[in-house]
């Protein structure tokens, strides 16, 4: 199968959908070259640096029959648009009694590792998970991002595509034929029976590396990639933990009230899963600090395969957990 980068797969998804449906248009403060060249400046719009306006305009255009895509680029830039996201996009279908639908795709790159400091290194998807009325995903492979993005573009709701900065140039196989991946379907990226690692995006790959390493000791790690954050495939996660009895959650974001906390809750509030749980759950997350610039500091903040391995060993020995890090 041909290989594309994560970023190429995403752009290909957009381009294919734009070819299919003339109602789709794209707004961004800096348009993507290939899209601009193929679809022209009317459908691929260079905008002022006004993410709040763009986010809201997408709502109005969607409510008027179009299917806008707004590329916030870095997730950090969407905080200026938060009112339009939380108070408008997330609620408007509901508070108007469902009388019309608002098909919108918002795109946002997340994550750190680029030494671009606190403002430009964020993974705040959990904040959006907390808001009722938004769907969102965060894929780990070119294959997944393409399939999910196509589904999202066809969805009749606002959907946020969180995309991992660290994975942008990472390659992977992408089928030639048209395909989609439903929202809300986790993917077991590696099967194992001793411990479940629920990981997101870049940390899926770190978890796989950790699994590989531990396999040499005979420790069998199951790596579950939720892919979609809302709706969350709780069942796949619970089934895995029922099998392994142990859970590590790996997330590039900080732990507090985050995705990792949600996974811990989803597992421990479920009777059947709780009954099988042999050790405390373990969150392997970023430290709960703004992300610093200097590489030595930044590296210390983020989790990686080594910390995942440490976390796995901890739950395997049922040892008492310490900090969230």
């Amino acid at each position, binding site marked *: 199968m041909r290989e594309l980068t994560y970023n190429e797969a995403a752009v290909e998804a957009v381009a294919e959908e734009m070819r299919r449906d003339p109602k789709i248009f794209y707004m961004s403060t800096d348009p993507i070259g290939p899209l601009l060249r193929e679809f022209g400046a009317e459908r691929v719009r260079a905008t002022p640096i006004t993410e*709040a*306006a763009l986010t809201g305009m997408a*709502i109005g*255009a969607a409510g*008027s029959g179009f299917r806008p895509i707004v590329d916030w680029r870095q997730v950090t830039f969407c905080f200026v648009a938060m009112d339009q996201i939380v*108070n408008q996009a997330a609620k408007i279908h509901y508070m108007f*009694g469902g*009388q019309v639908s608002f*098909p919108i795709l918002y795109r946002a790159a997340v994550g750190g590792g680029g030494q671009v400091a606190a403002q430009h290194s964020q993974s705040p998807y959990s904040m959006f998970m907390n808001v009722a009325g938004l769907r969102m995903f965060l894929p780990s492979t070119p294959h997944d991002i393409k399939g999910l993005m196509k589904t999202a573009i066809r969805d009749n709701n606002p959907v946020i595509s969180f995309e991992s900065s660290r994975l942008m140039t990472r390659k992977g196989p992408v089928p030639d034929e048209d395909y989609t991946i439903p929202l809300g379907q986790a993917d077991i990226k590696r099967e194992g029976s001793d411990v479940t690692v629920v990981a997101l995006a870049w940390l899926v790959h770190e978890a796989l590396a950790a699994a590989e390493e531990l396999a040499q000791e005979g420790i069998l790690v199951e790596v579950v990639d939720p892919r979609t954050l809302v709706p969350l495939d709780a069942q796949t996660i619970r089934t895995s933990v029922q099998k392994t009895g142990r859970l590590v959650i790996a997330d590039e974001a900080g732990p507090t009230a985050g995705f990792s906390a949600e996974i811990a809750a989803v597992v421990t509030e479920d009777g059947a899963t709780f009954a099988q749980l042999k050790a405390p759950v373990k969150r392997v997350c970023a430290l709960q600090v703004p992300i610093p610039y200097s590489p030595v500091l930044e590296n210390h903040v983020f989790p990686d395969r080594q910390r995942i391995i440490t976390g796995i060993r901890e739950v395997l020995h049922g040892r008492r957990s310490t900090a969230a890090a």
Partner: protein
Amino acid sequence: MSLSTQSLSPNLPPDTQREMLRRMLTIRRFEERASDDYRAGKIYGVVHCYIGEEAVAVGVCSALDRGDRIISTHRGHGHCIAKGADLNRMMAELYGRQTGYCKGKGGSMHIADFGIGMLGANGIVAGGIAIVTGAGLAAQMEGKGGVAVSFFGDGASNAGPFHECLNIAATWKLPMLYVCENNMYAAQTPAAATHALSDVAARAAGYGIPGVVVDGNDIFAVYQAANRAVDRARSGDGPTLIECKTYRWRAHTERRGQPDLRDPAEVEMWKSRDPIAQLEHQLREQGYLDDTELQAVERDIMGAIEAAVTFAEASPFPSPEQATDDVFAA
């Protein structure tokens, strides 16, 4: 920035002028009833009345076609009625019933009717400006000559989205009207305390678009300004900022104990400039209206409002489980 002064009735058929009166009166009577019913505990939450400002919504919407789109504010009943919303479904929504525009999910602050191009009331100050600018972009892309109108208050004119959207609309020549309802207050805060200049319309100059100040209590002045702006928008020349100087008669909200720090003399002065009485007077002067006709209109309106209340009261509340419907579209 140009200033439209009080105008006499333009070349409008008498029927149209009477229809304007009827719509303004409908808004007023609807809200009188809504505020009574709110105090009676039949309507919940919060209700913001538009009474005193009816000429703005009706004047502007009279210049629009059905396919044109508008967006409203927290003070939304006037815009709904001006754009032709159904009183039954409006009242049912206020009553929190299943038959309401939003199936009881929205209430006063969120009535919408996309079918008639009414993109909703909105509880966030300036929250609708970007949304309706997107509708303006849609209209431009559709290429069928549609326009979109953003109603917003003097308070909203200081908020970021106002600026962002005026610039985008001006740059992209979107078919937009930005209609500032300058009622001189944002809740308790006088506009003079929060605006560097008394005319919001002065800001249009920064985007190279027309900025017009009109007497918002003179429906023909509003109508004419809107009409010019609609022509401009449909011709592809871009947006216009229209500032309507007007006044709200009632407190900011109908909530009991709600303070109203305005000078009662000021309120009285503005009541003496009642936009409805003024239009009535003009229609009478022209021989377009007499007591009998007016009484018939009033009777009609009261009948429609009574019917709306009856409809609302006869409608079931949603079932509790419907709270989980409509979070996502199919």
